[in-house]
């Protein structure tokens, strides 16, 4: 079950929002400061963060920056008591999920939380698939990875054998081992898989 992490220095507001979110069926964990949240922040907890932009000590933007540096960068949704344009722009540029006034309608808040959780689920899935792929690639031998590098560049077995100074039949054996280990059937599929593993999964673009 994903957890909505609430961070606000105003205990009264914190209680009120957690009541609403719990009543709406969410699992909620309230914190009165950004540092208290970061201290207990786990590596694999799913969910999102709903934070006050203005807080003494580490403020909302600081929290977002600190969270992005961890291996579990949950989406952050900001609440603010005032509509301050400068802060809004900075927050959105840093990839804030949403930016709401504290007095915004309930539907807007719940929608935003829903979106943030959905995004976390998507990003978490992508991160998971990528990690599995990387694990499979880790299983290849040094020679098999050299052969794979040539294969995805579209070179023929004969050319690969000449480049690596090995027999053409040995190249065929390596290719068979690679496709078996990675569970792919065609060269095209192999190329797509390597391309996916090559770069880390990027966050989804925020602005349409």
């Amino acid at each position, binding site marked *: 079950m994903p957890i909505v992490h609430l961070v606000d220095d105003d205990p009264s507001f914190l209680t009120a929002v957690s*009541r*609403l979110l719990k009543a709406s069926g969410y699992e909620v964990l309230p914190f009165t400061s950004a540092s208290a949240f970061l201290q207990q922040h786990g590596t694999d907890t799913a969910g999102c963060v709903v934070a006050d932009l203005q807080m*003494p000590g580490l403020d909302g933007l600081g929290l977002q920056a600190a969270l992005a540096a961890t291996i579990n960068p949950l989406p952050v949704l900001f609440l603010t008591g005032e509509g*301050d344009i400068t802060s809004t722009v900075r927050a959105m540029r840093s990839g804030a999920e949403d930016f709401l006034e504290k*007095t915004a309608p*309930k539907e807007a808040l719940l929608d935003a939380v829903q979106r943030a959780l959905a995004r976390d689920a998507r990003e978490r899935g992508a991160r998971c698939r990528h990690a599995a792929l990387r694990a499979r690639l880790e299983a290849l031998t040094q020679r098999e990875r050299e052969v794979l590098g040539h294969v995805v560049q579209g070179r023929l077995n004969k050319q690969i054998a000449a480049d690596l100074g090995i027999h053409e039949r040995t190249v065929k054996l390596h290719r068979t081992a690679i496709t078996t280990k990675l569970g792919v059937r065609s060269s095209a599929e192999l190329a797509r898989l390597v391309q996916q593993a090559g770069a880390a999964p990027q966050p989804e673009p925020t602005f349409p």
Partner: protein
Amino acid sequence: MSWVTVIWSMCAAACLTLAFVHALVWAHDRAARASLLFAFVAVGAAGYAFCELWLLQARTPQEFAAAVRWAHVPLFVWLVSLAGFVCAYLRAGRAWLLWTLIGLRVVVLGLNFSTGQNLNFLEVTSIQQVPFLGEPVAMASGVANPAMLLGQFSALLLLILVVDAGITAWRRGDRRRALMVSGSVVALLAASTAEANLIVWAGLQLPFTISLFHLGMLAVMGFELSRDVLRASRLVRELQASEASLRESRQRMNLAADAADLGLWAWEPGADDVWATPRCCALLGLPQRSHFALADFTDRVRPDDRERITQPLRRALEEGQAYAVQYRVRLPSGAERWIEATGRVDEPEAGRARRLQGVCADITERRRAEKETARLRTELAHAGRVSMMGQLASALAHEINQPLGAILRNAEAAELFLQSDSPDLDEIRAIVADIRHDDQRAAAVIDRMRALLRRQALQTRPLAVGELFSDVRLLVRADAAARQTRLDLDELPADLPAVSGDRVHVQQVLINLIVNALDAVAGSAGSDRWVGVVARRRDTRFVEIAVSDSGAGIPAERLPQIFDPFFTTKAGGMGMGLTISRTLVEAHGGQLWADNRPGGGAVFTFSLPIATAVAAA
């Protein structure tokens, strides 16, 4: 003409001259009764001199007897008025003695005309001519009248009266007068009595020359009286001179008072007499007289201002305090005028009653100007507050949106709870309590904002510094939080006394200084941004409140200018905040000044008077 005629006539003339002079003195000064009595003495002496001349030149015993008989009439006048004169002049003598003497002398006068040929002789038997001053004068011999003893006794009474009066005057200190008057009377009486006795009883071959003794006595007394007249005339001259200088100094005082547009007044409470200059009357709308009763004055004063006068008047009279009051008078035209009156009780000179004297002035214009200044200060302060609240608007919106947001979320949560089949009533109760609490929170902020934005004149009353701090904290903490600045506004000495001040205006000063300090630290690195407010008791009269910051401080060359109007270092600033703050603090009787802290940063300190027990009551 014979020598006797010449001498006695001149003697009489001299006496009459003295009589005339002193009668004249009395005519000019009716209080000089001694002079009148002296004139009678002199007239008596003159009459006696004529009678004596008559008897000296008598040709027959009958003529001599008649002369002696008539001589007793001026003698009566002389003796009675002499007794009166001595008593009046020496301001001494026993009244019963005087009246006894007068009564006795009346009897003597009666006997003079009823027994024998006169008081002295039952019958003059013969006269003989004896040479005197080279011519023959009459001398009588005859049967002595025993009633003459009564005359002698009256002379003794006069002697006693005069000696007694002389002793009294001597003891009192009027030694010269006592000696001159009593001495000359005693000498005359001794001499004339001796002569009369010698002539009548011993039959000495000498005419009566008592007039000459009279003249001698009159000369001595006249000299003494003239000295008085001379002294009086010198005193008159001195008095005139001092009156002239008094008039001059009074003119100068009036000139100065008129130039300063001041009215002068003096009140003598014992006689309830108020003296006032024409200017004073004009100021108070009184008719142009120089003397009034106090009620005439107070009638002019507006009824609700009369209390302001009575208490200070009483204190001035009873405790000797300076009298200083301001009150309004109603002029006959119906207009009102503000009057300031000051005065004091002067230690009265000997013989004069205590009185309160002073000046009054028209301060209507000054009061109007003061009122206008106060109004302008109120307006300016209000404008300053509006602008200051504008600066805080965004932070204050946050301060209000926080509880409003909480209320909204709680209400929405409650709706959701109520939609369930078995609502958790405890949770809903907790929600309602929280909603109420947050509502009060928002209302408190709005109340304080509204109080600050209200336009009001300075009203000082006792203020607890702790309450002042908590009100101000509510309004500025959001701004401090938005600027990521630590704001220390909590620590107060436990025994800090309340200050005397206007709640709104003192808050305005404190908020202005805190917002300035927040601006000052905006440029420095995050963890160092700090603004601190402390209060302490400076001495028995003042509390100091200091606002310190961790900013760059104030360059030394700018320190003298920062309180000047329109001096600003901020892009959007008007440069009025500190000017207004200083004006407000000074209107409270305190001070506001700036300094740099030794460890860096600026510190603005202002002092406020401690609320005294009297002010608190």
